[in-house]
Each structure stands twice: as C-alpha cells, then as structure tokens.
C-alpha cells in the first residue's frame, strides 16, 4: 500500500513538473493609488502579466505585444488610468507577449471565445475582425477632439464601413505609425565628393542611377567591387521604388491582379532589377552571403531603406558608426512626381464582448494620445525615441524642437517622415495593397520570382505575363476567405 501511495505521489510530481512550464509569470502590485508603484515584474521569456488594482468592481484585460522598454512606459500610463478611475476599476491585467507569439495566442483566444478587453488590430485585420464580430466601433466612445489630434492617415486606416477600409466607423486608435523611408551614408558621399540628397527634392530614377554609379567602387583595389550605391532590402525595400512610379498591383476594388499589361510596373521593375544587373547593388549571390542590412551597417552601401523603427539602431554609433541622414525614395517618370513609400501601424481596439466599453475606450485613448505618454515614447522627455508621436502637433512642435536642438538623437531630415505620414508636395505614403486583402499570399509569387529577373534568367515582360495567373488565383482565394466571415 505504502509503495502504491509513493508511486502515485511520484507520478503526480512528475506530471506537475511537466506542466509547470505552461504558466506565465504574474505579479501583483501592492497599494491602490501609489504614484510610484513598486512593481516587481518578472518578465518571462514568452510574456508577462501585471495587475494594477483599484477599489471598484470592474476588471479590464489588456493583451498586447511590445518590447520591455516600451512596456514600462505603457504600464505607467495604465497605472495612472487606474488611479484616475480607482473607484470604478477593480483590476487591470496588463499582459504582454512577444510579437511572434501574439497572433497564435489571439487565435487561441478567439477559438476559446475568451477575448481580452483591449488588444491590437492592424489595418490589415480590421475587416476580418469587424466582419467576424470581434471589435467594437468607437464612434460613440471616443470624441472628435481625441481623434483630431492624431495624424490624418491614422484617422482613416482604422475606419471600415462594411465594404471599404478607410471609410465608415472608427475601430481602433493607433499605437504607432511607421513608414519605410530611405537613408544615405553621408561619409560615403563625402568621400566621393557628392552633394547630399536634397530632402525637398527627391532624386528622379535617372539622377539616382548616376549617384549610385559614383558610389559603386572597388575601394581596396583588388579588382572586385566592395562598395555599392544601394542594397536590396527584400520585398519591402522594392515596393517604394514601384509605388514612386505610380504602380498599383491590383484594381481599385482589390479584386483583380493587374501586372501583365501594367506599363508603369514594367518600367519600375526594369529600373529596380537593372540596379542589380548593372552592378549597382550586390549581386543575388552576394546578397545570400551577406544581406543588405549587414552591408549597410558595415559601411559598404550608399543608400539603404530605413524604417522609423531602424532610426534608433542607426543613431547608435556602436551599431552604425557613420554620418547618415534621411532622404526620399527616387521618383519614377510615370507617377505623380512624388516619392512614395508604404506605411504601417498597429492599433488598440476594444472587444465587442467587453463589459466595460466606456472604460476600455477611454483607456485606449489614453494609451494612444496621452501627451505625457507620447512625449515619453517619442523621446522628448526620455531622450530615447521608440516611435514618432501619434499626435501631429507634438511631432511638429516639441519633437522637432528636441531634434533640432540636439536633445534627441534623430536625423535632422525628420521632416521626410512627416511628409510621408501626411502627404505633401514631395512625399506620400499609403498602406500596402497586401494590407487590404485577407493575406499577402497573392504577392508571394511576384516577389519570389524577382530574383530570376535579377539573375538575368527572364525578362521583366515575360515574368509579368507568367506570374499574373498565379497571383490572381491566390487573390481569389484570399477574397473567398475574407468573405467567409459569419456573425
């Protein structure tokens, strides 16, 4: 009998040990309205959850992904929010995970019908989330003044009227807005005796080629090129060239792929692939050995893509020990004369099943537009920028002042980013077309075939004719999945 009991205890212990890895770490904050909460959050590798308590009876679950340094700022905002509503709120559970795991966990929540109250939605997900009844329209909960503070672009990308994204009810407020700008290595320009690119006048395609030719050299004289004018930055670094030539892959209603008879696309793609064929970028083989990003960091590249999220790394002298600045992507002859790029964002939304829509909407408005919070994340008060301010007045005001006065490490041509965000006479940005379709599978055959052009295996015209049917099939599938929503 004793042996059996011992065996059962051992078996239970083994089972418990095996399952213990499934838990996330949770800590509780002591105190109710402390202005300096002493939170001891143990950040587990796969996520963490903090609990902020009040005296009320309402619980809000917040589920996001972000990096540790961002989390501290947003945790502070949530603590303020709890303090402001301490008589209503019992607890706000702030759970953070990694970006890689976020989608999987959200799908698990959706399957289990156990949605958090506040979570993320990207512009690409708005249609699916709304059609499947997951998120709440915010029109009755967020006032026009709050909405009016944020960049005009982000006011529209989270709108949906049941048919078109960009119109109708507002479903999310931005956590951030980013875009894929262009950067140049000023030290290489100095060595070549070239004038820096004018942020008020982006290069044309032809001007860009001439500058790249001047920057593409054999530095060490061994007979092999070891410095290039520009490097490829995967598909996200290809589309700005194309958009800047007025290219649209899909019809206006996003149902038809239009690449085979698309003259603007043909010209732009020839320009892009000729950069490699003419040796102004590392070859396809060289790209597989060392990617463009690494070569840029190593000072081998004159121009490279720079997302708003790359700025901090490029400003760090240890990571990128060169003088650099922002500029516009080159402009093609078939477009509207402006430099175009794509933008991205992720937004806070409120679950349709939440029991506390007013509080949740107020919380996301705070996370998105609280001025002190935006000053912290943009680096105005911290000296370390995680993102650009969501509030356009703050961006043009204190943020720009901090950059110009040298208090905030940021490239001086920051107005290039503002131009892309808002659209002006030189710049414009928009969501990628893949953000308007259920998935980006229709774009994959296009991108994966570009290398064949860059290797000289196929002409652009033949490629576009060949790839269109495969792209259309995948798009039809995506449309069918998009329309498969049931409420």
């Amino acid at each position, binding site marked *: 009998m004793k042996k*059996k009991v011992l*065996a*059962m205890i051992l*078996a239970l212990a083994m*089972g418990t040990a095996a399952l213990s890895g499934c838990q996330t770490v949770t800590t509780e904050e002591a105190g109710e309205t402390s202005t300096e909460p002493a939170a001891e959050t143990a950040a587990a590798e796969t996520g963490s959850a903090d609990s902020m308590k009040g005296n009320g009876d309402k619980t809000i679950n917040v589920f996001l992904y972000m990096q540790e340094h961002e989390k501290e700022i947003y945790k502070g905002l949530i603590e303020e929010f709890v303090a402001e509503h301490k008589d209503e709120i019992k607890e706000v559970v702030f759970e953070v995970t990694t970006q890689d795991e976020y*989608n*999987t966990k959200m*799908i698990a929540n*959706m*399957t289990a019908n156990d949605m958090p109250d506040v979570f993320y939605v990207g512009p690409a997900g708005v249609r*699916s*989330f709304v059609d*499947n009844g*997951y998120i709440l329209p915010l029109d009755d909960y967020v006032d026009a003044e709050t909405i009016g503070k944020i960049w005009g672009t982000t006011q529209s990308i989270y709108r949906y009227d049941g048919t078109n994204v960009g119109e109708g009810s507002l479903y999310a407020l931005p956590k951030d807005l980013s875009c894929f700008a262009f950067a140049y290595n000023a030290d290489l320009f100095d060595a070549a005796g070239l004038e820096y690119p004018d942020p008020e006048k982006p290069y044309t395609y032809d001007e860009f080629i001439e500058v790249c030719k001047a920057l593409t050299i054999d530095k060490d004289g061994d007979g092999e090129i070891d410095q290039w004018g520009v490097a490829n930055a995967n598909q996200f670094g290809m589309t700005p060239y194309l958009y800047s030539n007025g290219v649209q892959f899909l019809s206006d209603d996003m149902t038809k792929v239009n690449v085979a008879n698309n003259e603007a696309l043909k010209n732009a793609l020839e320009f892009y692939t000729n950069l490699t064929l003419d040796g102004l970028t590392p070859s*396809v*083989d*060289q*790209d*597989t*050995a*060392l990617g463009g990003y690494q070569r840029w960091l190593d000072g081998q590249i004159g121009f490279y893509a720079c997302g708003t999220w790359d700025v901090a790394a490029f400003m760090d002298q240890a990571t990128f020990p060169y003088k650099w600045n922002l500029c516009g992507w080159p402009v093609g002859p078939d477009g509207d004369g402006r430099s175009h790029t794509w933008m991205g964002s992720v937004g806070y939304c409120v679950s349709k099943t939440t029991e506390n829509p007013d509080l949740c909407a107020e919380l996301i408005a705070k996370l998105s537009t609280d001025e002190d919070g935006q000053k912290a994340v943009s680096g105005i008060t911290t000296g370390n920028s995680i993102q650009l301010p969501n509030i356009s007045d703050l961006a043009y005001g204190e943020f720009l002042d901090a950059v110009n006065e040298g208090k905030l490490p940021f490239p001086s041509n920051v107005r290039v980013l503002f131009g892309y965000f808002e659209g002006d006479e030189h710049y414009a940005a928009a969501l990628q077309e893949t953000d308007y379709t*259920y*998935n*980006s*599978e229709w774009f994959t055959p296009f991108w*994966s*075939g570009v*290398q*064949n052009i860059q290797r000289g295996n196929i002409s652009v015209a033949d490629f576009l004719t060949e790839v269109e049917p495969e792209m259309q099939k995948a798009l039809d*599938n995506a449309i*069918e*999945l998009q329309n*498969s*929503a*049931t409420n």
Partner: protein
Amino acid sequence: MAGSKKVKVKMSQMAKREERWAWLFIAPPFIGFMCFMAYPIVFALIVSCSRWTGINSLWGNLVGLRNYIEIFQDAKFWKAMVTTIIYMIGIPIGMILGMTIAMGLNRGIPGKRLLTTMYYVPVVSSLVAVSILWAWVFNYDYGLLNGIYKALTGAHGPNWLGDEHMIKVSMIIFMVWKGLGSSIILYLAGLQNIPRDYYEAAEIDGASGWQRFRNITLPLLSPVTFYILITSLIGGFQVFVEVQVMAASGGPNYSAATVVFYLYEKAFTNGQLGYGSAIAVILAIIIFMITALNFWGQNKWVNTDI
C-alpha cells in the same frame, strides 16, 4: 474441454482493489493521450474539411473534401513533396556512413569513447542552433566550406544556399551530419551483439572479409537497419526547422521547401488553418502507409534470429 462454457470467476476484494489501482495508474497517460493526441487528431480532421482561418467560424465554413481536391491540384504542394523525397537520399547515405564508422569503432581503436561522444554531440544539439551554425558554414562569401574550396582551388565555391540545386545538396549534407551519431550508436550496439563465434567459424571456413560482412554482419544488423530506416523515413517527412532557419522563404524558387514548411506557411503565415490541416492529414496518411509497407516487407529481409 470442447463445448464447455467460460465460467465467470468472481473477483476477490483484493483483486478488485488491485484493479482499481491499476485503472488509477493507467488514467493519467490515457487522459493525456485523449487530451493531447486523440482530440487534436479528431479536431484536425474536422478543420481539414473547412475553410477555417482561426478568425472566422469553423462550423459555418465546412467545405467537405474541397481542401483535399485543391491540394492534389496544387503545384507548390507537389514541388514541396518532391523536395521532401529528394532529401531522403540522405537516409541511405547516413546509414552506410554510420555502419562504416561503427565498424571502425568496433575494432577497439584508442579514443573510441571520445570519438563516439563527438559523433553523438550533433544529435543532442539544438536543431535551431546547429542550423544557424551550418548556415554560416555554407555562406557563399564567408563560409568555412567555400574558404577551404578557395584555399585548395583558388576559385570561388558554389552558392550552397543560394542556388536552387545546391541548396538541396546542402540540406542533405546537414541532415546526414546531424543524424550520423544516432546511426553510429545503434549500429555499434548491434555489432556488439553479434557473437564472435560466427566470425571465427567463417574465418576457419576461409570466408573473406567481404563475405563475412555480407553473410554475417549485414543480416544480423538488419533489425537495426530496419529501425533506423523506419524512424528516418518518419522524420524525413517532417523536416521543417532546418529549412526555416537556412532557407527562410523556402529557398530560391521555393527549391528547399518541404511539405511541413509549406503546411506551416499555409496555416500560420497565410491564415489558412483548414488547408494546412488537410496537408497534415495527407502527410500522416502517407507516413502511415510507408511505415505499414515497411513492416509488411520486413519478413523478406529483416533477420531476427541470432
């Protein structure tokens, strides 16, 4: 006796108590099997008959066998399947190398334990870590292999991971290297189980080394060979991590992608859980059929007598 009825014996209290304890001990693995194996399998079968994306309704989007029909017409699926089968060229290579090295180690050479450990280290190493390592070994400009190639020939080596044919060779080399230790250990154990008498008797009868190998070693190692073959085939159909690490987008022109890689892409990158589940079901059926075929065929060549 013929025609006698089976008499039901009433269990004693002690026997009943024993039986209850037996059920209690069986319960955890059984419940675990039901929760983590049986239920997911049944769920996957249902999902495979739907256009479920994880966001839309599963039950509102049942489509019968449509996913399966589309898969059989899907050129990318077949390309991934052919690639998966090509990778299995590494199985006989690994087995031959493993047997050869095991035979060498079995001769009682000095440093046998150290060598065995060294061969086994890749087996127990993290697949992700060694894949990253080998991605650098295969690097076109900075890799070890091309460095050696250039030192020996003066010419630039091939693009191991950037050429659609070479990438398959690279993957096979990596997979053989990764699994070699396991084959060696198993063959070594099998060799040490062969009685010395057989070899002595064969020597007395004048058998050559090759004859001894072919008529004694090979047949008596056949159970080990059978085990390695089965487990390698099952593992070979599920290759994923090394492709994801060394050829993130499936390689040039999708030349390195395996079936599981394609399944992952469909299910988790493109949000088509139903289609991905159908691929998983097809893969499971293929693996089952090949395993069953091997078990059926084992009587013809697997020698279990010693």
